């Protein structure tokens, strides 16, 4: 009699696994919203991924065609809801380019200040949520503790914590408040009297001073963490050619080593805002900063780009705050809601935390655009996930999808 383990046929039969379809999502914590990934698995290995989107589709573009651009601003907030200010900015700039509007210097400085502060908040969520995807909970709590203060500051500026509609056509809706109660989180962290008041600029400076010192701690907690490196380095590699072909932008593109930042290389109306500001574009590879296992375009590089962009954003916010007191002009020029849009078209991209968000307006002489298009950066960034996830372990899918840092509100619009 032959023992089962000795017969090759039987062994083969014994360990053979059937193809199994696994639904990851639409309600899954690591899909960053309502994304459904249909995974075709053989045991632990993925050999096919199909993404199903649209669970959050509101046809924002159709709504945009039935409203004047100023009325559409609140809808852009709800696209990338973690970076509402940056969404507002892209849309406002596109409309201003179309109607040939000039914005005063003060509004420009405020826009840079607020947009970069929102970039910090957004990347903090990106960092925290990525840790969460990989199974560590504490970075998430730290990230949200810090983000909370930024949201408090935003609330003092415009009254909203998530959907700001602050940057609008013609400038911004409010000037910075002179005197605010110190954000409770900031008072606790810096040991100040929670009942004290200070100017908005002072509160923001206090926060940035405090945050800057914490960044090395995040690096200890995540970036240099051995388990984190094991999960991310050398995984989900996107070559520069693939990144360009798949239309990847933002940290995904920078992580693949393509040096293209719209704040420096974009449309003149956008790059003019950043004239006189000193900042570095963060691009992989990172040389001796990177762990041995990291390769160009992997998960780790994308994550590290975000971490360094926070440092750059802090620098930009500080410069904007220094410019603010002497900035000329009003914070907003009047703009009528029913201003006619000329018979022309404009496509403008801005560098949002998650990549290049593009707004395309076609006017036909009416106050409502004939076509209002929002090109989502996450939409393009996510489209590469199907290819990246092929041949990896099931447990690495959240690591890859998380490293793209997607927001479904922006993808589905």
């Amino acid at each position, binding site marked *: 009699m032959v023992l089962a383990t000795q017969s090759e046929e039987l062994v083969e039969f014994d360990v053979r696994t059937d193809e199994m379809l696994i639904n990851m999502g639409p309600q899954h914590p690591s899909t960053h919203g309502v994304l459904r990934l249909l995974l075709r698995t053989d045991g632990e290995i993925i050999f096919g991924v199909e993404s199903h*989107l*649209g669970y959050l*589709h509101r*046809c924002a*573009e*159709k709504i945009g*065609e039935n409203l004047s651009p100023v009325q559409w601003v609140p809808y852009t907030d709800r696209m990338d809801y973690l970076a509402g200010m940056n969404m507002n900015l892209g849309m406002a700039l596109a409309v201003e*380019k*179309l109607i040939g509007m000039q914005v005063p210097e003060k509004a420009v400085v405020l826009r840079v200040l607020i947009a970069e502060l929102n970039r910090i908040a957004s990347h903090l969520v990106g960092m925290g949520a990525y840790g969460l995807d990989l199974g560590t909970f504490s970075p998430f709590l730290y990230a949200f503790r810090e983000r909370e203060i930024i949201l408090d500051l935003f609330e003092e500026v415009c009254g909203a914590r998530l959907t700001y509609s602050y940057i609008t056509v013609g400038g911004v809706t409010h000037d910075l408040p002179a005197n605010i109660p110190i954000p409770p989180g900031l008072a606790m962290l810096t040991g100040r009297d929670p009942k004290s008041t200070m100017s908005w600029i002072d509160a923001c400076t206090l926060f940035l001073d405090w945050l800057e010192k914490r960044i090395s701690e995040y690096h200890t907690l995540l970036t240099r963490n051995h388990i984190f490196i094991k999960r991310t380095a050398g995984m989900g590699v996107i070559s520069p*050619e*693939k990144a*360009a*072909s*798949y*239309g990847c932008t933002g940290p995904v593109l920078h992580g693949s080593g*393509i040096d*293209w930042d719209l704040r420096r*290389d974009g449309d003149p109306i956008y790059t003019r805002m950043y004239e006189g500001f000193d900042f570095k574009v963060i691009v992989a590879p990172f040389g001796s900063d990177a762990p041995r296992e990291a390769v160009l375009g992997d998960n780790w590089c994308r994550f590290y780009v975000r971490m360094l962009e926070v440092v750059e954003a802090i620098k930009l916010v500080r410069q904007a705050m220094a410019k603010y007191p002497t900035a000329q002009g009003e914070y907003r020029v009047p703009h009528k809601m029913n201003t006619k849009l000329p018979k*022309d*078209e*404009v*496509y403008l*991209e801005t560098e949002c935390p998650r990549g*290049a968000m*593009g707004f*395309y307006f*076609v006017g036909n002489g009416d106050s409502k655009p*004939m*076509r209002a*298009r929002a*090109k989502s950066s996450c*939409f*393009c960034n996510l*489209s*590469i996930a199907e*290819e990246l996830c092929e041949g990896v372990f099931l447990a690495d899918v959240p690591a890859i999808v998380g490293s793209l840092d997607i927001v479904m509100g922006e993808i*589905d*619009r």
Partner: protein
Amino acid sequence: MTPQQIHELLLEKFQDKIESANLGSLEPHITVKAEAIADVCQFLKSDQRLQMNHLNNLCGVDHLDAKTGTGRIEVVYHMQSYPQRHRICIKVALPRTGDGPNGLPKCPSVTKVWDVANWHEREAFDLFGIHFEGHPKLVRILCDEGWEGHPLRKDYVFPTHYQGMRAN
């Protein structure tokens, strides 16, 4: 390269396939005949002087004349080159109905040129009803599979019911 130079280069290569150009617009664009769009895009990407390796945006625009009920659907391609640092907009004008499946207008797919066109074309198919020929898997992406009609068309009638349920 300036849009003028790109236009001259395309005229030289494709002659009568280039229909018109509006280079004075805020968004300088060149209109190309539908049957040539895949070749034009391939040329724009692979030519050493152009190297358009990044497709920023691909979308439809419905130019419906409400009075006559006629018009055209445009497919708009925004592209740029990282090495050459220039950008251009290419357009294709299609009839609103055509000989594709369900009477949809047909347009050659550019998925072979840029991978990102895959999802963008699915979106344009979903919302505008443009049939992209040669697309590997042309199915709806944002709307549900069983959705009827193409919502971003100007003559789209808002449904009152969805699968037997009242929708408004």
